[in-house]
């Protein structure tokens, strides 16, 4: 079934990369305009309070200040989004958030006022002149406390803003059949995305009265949210997306765009706003911390019989995408295993902590911490090899999951896990007697493509120029993962062109067809399919014209090296340019606009998830070797391997890049990253307190790319961006456990936690 492609599947490096190594890319903050104003955000320094007094008079009077805005100046201060799919049984149905604090402060760092000034230093000085008085209100910072009826309410009457369940079989009966049961609680950290590029953009009003916002956007469709807040028609707001300096979900929710538009609208001048690194900490969402209570039972032969779990996520002070993230958690909570009896109850709870929302893995990856640790422990209790135990339970093609998803693509988990472990090679020897070496692996599954009840579509336009080169227009933003380059590769492959003969114009809400968000591991799947459809339509136009000119059937026409020829008789050929000219002469323009539609399903009507929600899943495994210093608790990662079935690697370089980057970000999640708050007060708001992996923390990573060509993307590709992080955290935990005989259940596995875990063990022994 595997086919030879001219471009797809190769290591494609060139155009995008060259501009980046030359320093030519004009990132969001690099852009400027004549008369540019510089903006800053004034933020709350209380986690739960009433705003008693706000006085911006002195700030407004400061020479060089063009404008200071408060909630009173915002036409529609409440940005409201229906969270599709939430049931009516629980809490709020709408992800309300206020653009600027009107009265109540719900988290430390919540925006209160906006300043625009002639220079960055005047804007900064103006912040200091804003006077504010608070009345403290009781806050709640622990999601378990927040679930109690007596807890202070963040919004409305119920802090539980989402609840989803899995129900399959009879867990009581299942546990009765179990010969071994393990039951544990796990906790996962509040991870910060920490892209190296801060959120940033420039907004201006053009000479047609349209609000233009050029910013680092994962979702250019936010022009709609901006229009809502300003009370403008959506057609009067345009988003021009930049090449993004990393996002990982951090630039998926609204960041600078609404503030920029408000300031440009009020002043009539171009305005730039770039978050400080600290502001990225306290001013923008994080990954949901989870409490995971898992009880898993198996038979003596390793067959799983029952899973009962309670899953609680800390949503922070605003709803944002928490109900959706929790759907992912619920569906993925079983792991990639077929379990006959399942009962999962998942809750997302508001607190006065920083709000949490999208982050690579989107509620699915946290579950792997629990389901993989449980598998390891069951295997240990049964005296089984952990892979042999898993093999008995892996999902297979055609299986139906506990949430009634049928697995339609291939599942190569055993091959992935074996390949990853083998890639670690010979086991390292400890550097000294106080150090212990261990290794472990973990498997994971992660959906790709948005939830099908969202009725996702993606559009793309392709045109052949008279010289045979192609122009592609696609709305998809490039997050840094090479999304634009993949579109180029798909179009070039279909049209028989070289990469540099295809120009891709991307990410402009009024110029490029909307292709949807660069989120949910959907870019290649959705926009790649759209590009393929559009390029194939253009190809058909050319083939029909060439067939007529060559006297061959259209289906026999092939395009290669700007030549159209008959596959049956390659001697019969024409320059592509001749065919295009003939098309144009006859009024048949070789262009096409096509829309790819994901499978559509009905909205969820029950809080029990019992219908397909995802287009497909990616499966993979990662393996780690660590050395633990038993005196200090320090963990050094010695070796790493990651193996995923990516369906088809459209660009092998970029696929490996996702896998290696996902491994490193997951290593950080497992070992060091935690955005700490004390009663809502942020403690780790810069990169010397919030540590992310450096080149010395990450070892050499071996990448094993499997290609089943069974995915739903172009050429059988699956998505890899989010799956790539999933198995990393649990793999490193497994390796630590293998080294020291103690399992760390509260991530990250910092030296302190490892040290005290060792003490506890020795104490008990």
């Amino acid at each position, binding site marked *: 079934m595997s086919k030879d492609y001219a471009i797809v599947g190769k290591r494609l490096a060139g155009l995008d990369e060259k501009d980046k190594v030359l320093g030519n890319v004009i990132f969001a903050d690099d852009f400027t305009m004549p008369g540019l104003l510089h903006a800053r955000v004034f933020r709350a320094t209380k986690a739960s309070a009433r705003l008693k007094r706000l006085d911006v008079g002195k700030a407004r009077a400061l020479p060089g200040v063009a404008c200071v805005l408060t909630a009173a100046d915002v036409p529609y201060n409440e940005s409201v989004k229906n969270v599709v799919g939430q049931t009516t049984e629980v809490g709020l149905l709408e992800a309300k958030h206020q653009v600027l604090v009107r009265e109540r402060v719900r988290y430390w760092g919540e925006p209160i006022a906006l300043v625009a000034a002639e220079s960055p230093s005047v804007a900064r000085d103006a912040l200091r002149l804003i006077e504010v008085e608070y009345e403290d209100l009781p806050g709640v910072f622990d999601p378990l406390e927040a679930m109690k009826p007596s807890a202070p309410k963040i919004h409305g009457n119920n802090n539980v803003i989402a609840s989803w369940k899995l129900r399959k079989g009879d867990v009581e009966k299942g546990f009765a059949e179990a010969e071994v049961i393990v039951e544990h609680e796990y906790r996962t950290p509040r991870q910060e995305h*920490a892209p*190296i590029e801060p959120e940033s953009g420039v907004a201006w009003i053009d000479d047609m009265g349209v609000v233009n916002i050029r910013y680092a956007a994962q979702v250019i469709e936010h022009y709609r949210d901006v229009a809502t807040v300003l009370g403008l028609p959506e057609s009067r707001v345009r988003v021009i997306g930049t090449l993004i300096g990393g996002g990982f979900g951090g630039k998926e929710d609204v960041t600078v765009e609404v503030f920029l538009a408000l300031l440009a609208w009020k002043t009539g001048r171009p305005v730039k706003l770039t978050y400080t690194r600290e502001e990225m900490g306290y001013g923008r969402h994080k990954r949901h911390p989870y409490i995971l209570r898992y009880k898993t039972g198996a038979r003596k032969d390793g067959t799983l019989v029952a899973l009962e779990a309670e899953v609680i996520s800390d949503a922070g002070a605003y709803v944002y995408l928490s109900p959706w993230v929790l759907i992912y958690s619920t569906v993925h909570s079983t792991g990639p295993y077929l379990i006959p009896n399942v009962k999962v109850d998942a809750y997302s709870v508001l607190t006065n902590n920083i709000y949490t929302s999208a982050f690579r893995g989107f509620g699915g990856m946290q579950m792997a911490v629990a389901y993989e640790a449980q598998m390891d422990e069951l295997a240990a209790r049964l005296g089984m090899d952990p892979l042999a135990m898993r093999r008995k339970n892996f999902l297979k093609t055609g299986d139906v999951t506990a949430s009634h998803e049928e697995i339609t693509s291939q599942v190569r988990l055993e091959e992935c896990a074996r390949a990853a472990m083998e890639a670690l090679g010979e086991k390292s020897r400890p550097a000294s007697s106080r150090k212990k070496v261990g290794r472990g692996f973990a498997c994971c599954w992660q959906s790709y493509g948005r939830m099908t009840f969202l009725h996702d579509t993606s559009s793309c336009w392709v045109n052949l120029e008279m010289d045979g080169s192609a122009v592609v227009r696609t709305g998809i933003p490039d997050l840094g993962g090479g999304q634009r380059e993949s579109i180029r590769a798909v179009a070039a492959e279909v049209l028989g062109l070289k990469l540099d003969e295809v120009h891709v114009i991307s990410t402009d809400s009024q110029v490029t067809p909307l292709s949807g968000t660069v989120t949910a591991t959907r870019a290649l799947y959705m926009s790649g399919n759209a590009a393929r459809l559009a390029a194939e339509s253009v190809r058909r136009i050319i083939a029909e014209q060439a067939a007529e000119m060559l006297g061959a059937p259209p289906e026999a026409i092939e395009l290669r090296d700007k030549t159209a020829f008959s596959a049956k008789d390659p001697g019969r050929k024409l320059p592509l340019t001749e065919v295009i000219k003939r098309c144009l002469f006859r009024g048949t323009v070789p262009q096409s606009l096509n829309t790819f539609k994901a499978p559509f399903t009905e909205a969820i009507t029950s809080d029990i998830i019992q219908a397909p929600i995802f287009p497909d899943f990616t499966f993979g495994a990662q393996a780690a070797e660590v050395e633990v210093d038993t005196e200090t608790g320090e963990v050094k990662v010695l070796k790493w391997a990651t193996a995923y079935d990516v369906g088809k690697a459209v660009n092998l370089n970029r696929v490996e890049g996702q896998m290696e980057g996902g491994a490193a970000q997951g290593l950080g999640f497992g070992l060091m990253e935690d955005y700490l708050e004390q009663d809502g007060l942020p403690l780790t708001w*810069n990169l010397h307190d919030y540590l992310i992996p450096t*080149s010395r923390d990450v070892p050499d990573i071996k990448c094993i790319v499997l290609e089943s060509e069974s995915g739903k993307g172009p050429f059988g590709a699956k998505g890899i961006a989010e799956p790539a992080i999933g198995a990393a955290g649990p793999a490193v935990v497994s390796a630590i456990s293998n080294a020291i005989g103690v399992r760390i259940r509260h991530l990250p596995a910092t030296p302190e936690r490892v040290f005290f875990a060792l003490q506890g063990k020795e104490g008990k022994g």
Partner: protein
Amino acid sequence: MVKTELYPLALTVNGRPVSARIAAETTLLDFLRDQGFIEVKRGCDKGDCGACTVIMDGKAILSCITLALQAEGSRILTVKSLGSWERLHPLQQAFVDYEALQCGFCTPGMLLAAKALLDHNPHPTREEIREAISGNLCRCTGYQKIVDAVEAVAKGAYR
């Protein structure tokens, strides 16, 4: 308002003389970006991330925690000093070939950290490469392909 006192500053950037009168607290990063050298990136402004790395008199430094006045008379190199579209610097070519980047935001600083390393130690081990770039954070790649690319140059693959 207190009148800000301005001080003269003269240095060369990528071989070109640049001079201005600046406030004493102006960082080298602010100065360079104000002068149009926007290839020098601001990631944290605290000396933590390395995105603002430039080479000053042969040494890789963090321009966000260097006062511009400290650079008086110095020779500054940004990533634009390395190569051109037609003729990439060996490190740039290796970064392209090895896909030693994704979003590209840390890349200018990363390339300069690597160049400063190879200028002083033309044949580093992988450990030495990892050490030399450990002040340059990359959130996309996991560093694997960056280390591979620098090592390839060090081993003479791009001579």
